[in-house]
C-alpha cells in the first residue's frame, strides 16, 4: 500500500518535466517539475533569460510546452481547445512590469474593461469596480487617466484589474521592476493581502530585498533549469 502525502491543500499548478524550446535550439525551460498549492506565495528568481517569464507564460497558455505536462486547477492545459483558453485565463490574473494599462481609459474604465471583456453584466461591474479600487487604495482616483498617476498607482490599477474577477491564481512578472523601493513595498503589501484571500501568487522578480524580507517559497531558475526550490527561502 502506498501512502500519498496529504497536506490538506489542493494543488493548483503542476509542471511535470516541462521543457520549452525556442526556435528549435534555445531551451527556455529545461525539464522543470514544480508543484504549487492553493494559497501559496511563490517567488521565481534567477538572472535575466533564466526562464522566469517563460514559466509564467506557459501557465496561461500564452506559450505551449514542447515536452511535459502542465496542470492548472487539475486540468491539462495543453489539451484545452483554443476556444476554451479564454476560460482558463479568467482564472488567472496577470500583472506586468509595464502595467499594460489602456492610456485612453480612466482608472475605473481600465478595471471595468476586464469585466466587460468577459461579458459581466453592468450591475456587477458598477458594484465591483469601486470596491476593488478601494481595496488597492485608489478609491479617489477612479476618474484619473493612467498618465496622471505615479508608477506605483498605475501598478495598483493593473493589480485591481487582474484581481477584480477574483482569480484563482495571480501571475506577476517583475511587478516592482519599474518602481522605487518604497513604492515596491506598498505593492508587495497589496500582493500579500491578495494572497491572504486564498489566491495563489506566483511572482517573477529580481528584487533581492523583497524576497529576503518576505521569506516565502523561492524557486530559482538557471538557464531554464530549476536549481533550487526552498520554502521560506531567500534570494540567494
Amino acid at each position, binding site marked *: 500500500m502506498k501512502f500519498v502525502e496529504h497536506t490538506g491543500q489542493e494543488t493548483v499548478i503542476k509542471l511535470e518535466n516541462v521543457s520549452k524550446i525556442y526556435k528549435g535550439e534555445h531551451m527556455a525551460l529545461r525539464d522543470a517539475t514544480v508543484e504549487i498549492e492553493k494559497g501559496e506565495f511563490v517567488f521565481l528568481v534567477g538572472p535575466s533569460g533564466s526562464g522566469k517569464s517563460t514559466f509564467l507564460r506557459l501557465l*496561461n*497558455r*500564452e506559450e505551449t510546452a514542447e515536452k511535459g505536462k502542465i496542470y492548472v486547477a487539475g486540468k491539462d492545459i495543453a489539451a484545452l481547445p*483554443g*476556444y476554451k*483558453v*479564454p*476560460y*482558463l*485565463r*479568467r*482564472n*488567472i490574473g*496577470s500583472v506586468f512590469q509595464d502595467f*499594460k494599462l*489602456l492610456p485612453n481609459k480612466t482608472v475605473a474604465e481600465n478595471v471595468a*474593461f*476586464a469585466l*466587460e*471583456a*468577459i*461579458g459581466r453584466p453592468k450591475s456587477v461591474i458598477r458594484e465591483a469596480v469601486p470596491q476593488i479600487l478601494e481595496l488597492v487604495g485608489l478609491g479617489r482616483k477612479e476618474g484619473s487617466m493612467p498618465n496622471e498617476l505615479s508608477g506605483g498607482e498605475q501598478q495598483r490599477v493593473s493589480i485591481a*484589474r*487582474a484581481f477584480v*474577477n477574483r482569480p484563482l491564481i495571480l501571475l506577476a512578472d517583475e511587478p516592482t521592476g519599474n518602481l522605487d523601493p518604497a513604492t515596491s513595498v506598498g505593492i508587495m503589501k497589496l500582493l500579500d493581502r491578495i494572497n491572504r484571500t486564498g489566491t495563489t501568487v506566483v511572482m517573477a522578480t529580481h528584487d533581492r530585498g523583497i524576497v529576503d524580507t518576505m521569506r516565502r517559497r523561492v524557486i530559482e531558475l538557471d538557464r531554464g533549469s530549476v536549481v533550487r526550490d526552498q520554502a521560506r527561502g531567500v534570494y540567494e
Partner: protein
Amino acid sequence: MAVRLDYVLKETGSNLVRNLTLTLASLLTVAIALAFVAVSFLIGTGINQSFLGLRSDVQMFVYMNPGATAEQIDSVSKNLQSNPQVESVKFLDKEKTYAEFKRLFADQPDFVESINPEELPQSFRVKPTSTDADVVSAVGTEFENMTGVYRVEYAEEYARQVQKSLSTLNSWVRLFGVALIFVSVLLIFNTIRTAVFARRREIEVMRLVGASNWFIRLPFMTEGMVQGLLGALAAAGLTWGFDALWKRNFVNQVSFELLNQIKWTGGDLWKAIIMILVVGAVTGAVGSGIAVGRYLRV
C-alpha cells in the same frame, strides 16, 4: 457567453470616429470600386439583352415550313445532330417561337395580336463548329433542300461582328467587375488591419483577462460591415447617377448605333444596387474577421 450589444455598438462607433480620415479615405475608394462593379454589371446585363433573338453562339437558323410534319422535323433534327460540322442545335417549337416573338415585339401589341401562333415557323438554332462564313454556309446549303425546310438564314456578317465584339466587351467588363470586388475587399481589409494594429494593446489586454475570441472580433466585424455598407451606399448613389446619364445620352439615340442597344431595366438597377450592398457588407465583415484573426492566435 452572450456578447453584449451595447458594448459592440459603442466600440464600433468610437472606432469609426477615431479613425475618421482613414475611414473616409477607404470609404471613398470602396465606393468608387463598388460603383464600377455595379456599372459593369449593368453594362454586362445590357449587352446580354441586346440582340435578343440572336445569341452570339447561334450562327444559323433552319426554319421549317409551318405545315412541316413531325417526321420531317425529326429527320432534320437527326441530321443536324449527326453532322460533324455542327456543335449544338436548339429546337424552338411553336410555343417558344411565339413567346420569343411576343418579347421582340412587346412594343407593338397590335402586331402581336394579329399573328396566329400556328402560322409561325418552327426553327432550329444551329451553332456550327466554326464561325468561318464558308463553313457555315456549307452546312446551310446541305439542309436547304431537305423536305419540310422553309429556308436557312444566316446571322449576317455585320451582326455577327457586332455580336462578337459586344460579347468580348462583355467578358472584359465582367472581369473588370470581379477584379474590382477583389480590390474593395483588400481596401476594407487594409483599413481594418490598421484599426486593429492601433488597438493591439487593447486586444492584448482583452486576451489576458480572458475575453473570448468572438468578443474581441465582433466590434471589428461590425465596424468593417458598417464601412462596407456605407461605401456601398455611396456607390449606389453613383450607380444611380450613371443609370440616369446613360439613359439620357445613349438609349434610343440614333446617333449611337452600338451603344443605344445596351439598355437595362429598373429591376436590373435594383439588382445591381442590392448586389453591391451585400458585397460591401459581407466583405467588410469577413475582411475584418480575418484581419483581426492574426492577433487572436493563442
